[in-house]
């Protein structure tokens, strides 16, 4: 039987902390960003030779992918199969939301029209969003779909961010530096679950294979290069997503093989007159995501929270 330590009284002084002055500069008030050093760089000059409109568009592409996907992951709160998965999925959603905040703040800054992260997130209509279709799909709270999409998304984004570590834009480079560590964990988490589901029970194998077939048609868009990206590659800011294809395929093939799953042979979803998510042309799902995401903010124009 252990005795109560002398110092333990201090550890339990929750009442005392309640009466402490609210410290607005406590970094935990903005928990989930963790980008303190990046905040200072958001106002950094646009790199020489770069069109600010292209950079703003690129930051929106990278930012919208994770804003919208984070929103989908947050739907899992209080719905996960186990508490460990509650914590992990919320953690992944928080990491991605943190990336989105910095990228949208940078997009707003270089655009120069006075739009901040919240104006961009809450007051744009769907045609102004530049995320890929993969991010906006509903997984209908099917855990197999959840981890199948996470495997594809995190493998692709990790490959992108690894190539963006040396981006000429300091904010993109800083997001990449932090994001590589985060996405490495996300990909590992997803791969472990794909192994368990693929090589678990007959039922989980069937569900995992079906989930791959659900996610696969959205893969093609990830490697299409937009005109803004093409120009920014030349300026040393962006990476050509087409260059990540081999790496992404290699990783996915390796995980699927080990999980005893079959790579689907399905054609990618088509575009409308050559336009897709990067050009603001979305699936029917995004309108519903934004209706929910923006509902409270739009009901209170001019309010601060």
């Amino acid at each position, binding site marked *: *039987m*252990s*005795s*109560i330590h002398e110092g*333990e009284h201090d*550890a*339990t002084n*929750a*009442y005392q*902390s*309640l009466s402490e002055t*609210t410290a607005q500069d406590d970094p*935990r*008030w*903005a*928990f*989930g*960003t963790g980008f303190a050093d990046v905040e200072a760089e958001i106002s950094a000059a646009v790199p020489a030779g770069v069109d600010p409109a292209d950079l703003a568009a690129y930051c929106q592409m990278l930012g919208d992918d994770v804003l919208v996907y984070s*929103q989908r992951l*947050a739907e899992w*709160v*209080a*719905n996960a*199969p*186990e*508490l*460990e*998965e*509650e*914590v992990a999925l*919320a*953690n992944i*959603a*928080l990491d991605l*939301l*943190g990336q*989105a*905040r910095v990228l*949208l703040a940078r997009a707003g800054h270089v655009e120069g029209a006075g739009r901040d*992260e*919240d104006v961009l*997130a*809450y007051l744009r209509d769907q045609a102004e969003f530049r995320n890929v279709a993969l991010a906006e799909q509903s997984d209908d*709270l099917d*855990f197999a779909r959840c981890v199948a999409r996470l495997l594809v998304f995190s493998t692709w984004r990790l490959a992108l961010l690894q190539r963006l570590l040396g981006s000429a834009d300091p904010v993109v480079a800083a997001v990449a530096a932090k994001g590589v560590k985060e996405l490495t964990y996300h990909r590992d988490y997803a791969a472990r679950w794909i192994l*368990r*589901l693929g*090589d*678990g*029970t007959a*039922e989980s194998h069937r*569900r995992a294979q079906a989930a791959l077939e659900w996610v696969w048609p959205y893969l093609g868009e990830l490697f299409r290069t937009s005109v803004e990206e093409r120009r920014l590659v030349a300026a040393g800011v962006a990476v050509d997503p087409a260059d990540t294809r081999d790496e992404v395929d290699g990783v996915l093939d390796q995980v699927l093989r080990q999980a005893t799953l079959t790579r689907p042979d399905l054609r990618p979803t088509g575009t409308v007159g050559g336009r897709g998510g990067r050009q603001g042309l979305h699936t029917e799902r995004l309108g519903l995501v934004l209706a929910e*995401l923006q509902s*409270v*903010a739009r009901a*209170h124009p*001019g*309010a*601060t*929270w």
Partner: protein
Amino acid sequence: MTATDARSPEAYAREFQATIDADQRIEPRDWMPEAYRKTLIRQIAQHAHSEIIGMQPEGTWITRAPSLRRKAILLAKVQDEAGHGMYLYAAAETLGVDREELTELLVSARQKYSSIFNYPALSYADVGVIGWLVDGAAICNQVPLCRCSYGPYARAMVRICKEESFHQRQGFELLLAMCHGTAAQREMVQESVNRWWWPSLMMFGPADGDSPNTQQSMEWGIKRHTNDELRQRFVDMSVPQAEALGITLPDPDLRWNAERGAHDFGEPDWSEFQAVITGAGPANAQRLAHRRRAHENGAWVREAARAYADKRAKAVSA
């Protein structure tokens, strides 16, 4: 204590009570009366269930949070609640039950959770008010548990109380921002406080005269203060905070009593309390159905994980 220990059951019981009376901790391998073990399992499990069910009312607002900063704060908070559930189930497991078993008791409605979560969260102000009042009341109840006689529970509570007090301040800070905002935001806060104030007072349980288990729990060092003492402390703590927000607490009988050095306040509607704790509150059925659905939808996933782990174990031993 081992099987060869020849002391009588009475000697064990005396030693147990002496440990408690000396304000020392009971640890998992120590002898304890069966009733003490049962009471603790029930209390810790209910506490764990409350954390998990408590994710629902706030969780429903994550996807609608009106700024990205608020979204991050809320997501992190609800994630913490899942974490608290995990520590508490782990503390209960030291008493010889397992999480799966306790989850079954929850989803089959054989164990309870805090009744406060049987109220609906109807506006974004509710996110702030749940943080301020509900977490505030929870802290009043829980801080004394950091000195609870059962070691694993007490240690889990130290960590949980620290995080809860941070959540309470975040809730208050949201309300402060809203109260400094538009007229519609201030009205939203007042409307929310009007709904949550009385249920928050009910979180301390029935009046002392109607709380049959309090005496035994106090003798066992599981409980340190009576329901009414904690309720008084909560009211006294909340009044100046409400003034700082510029909102009115919905109790015409609330006033400072200089003689007592405490606030006098009105009586909660105990018939509403009875209805909620017996299953007929506004959201009881919804909360339980949600938890049951999530648990059932996850059954094939947990099975797959077990099957995979078994295959790995066989592969290693082969």
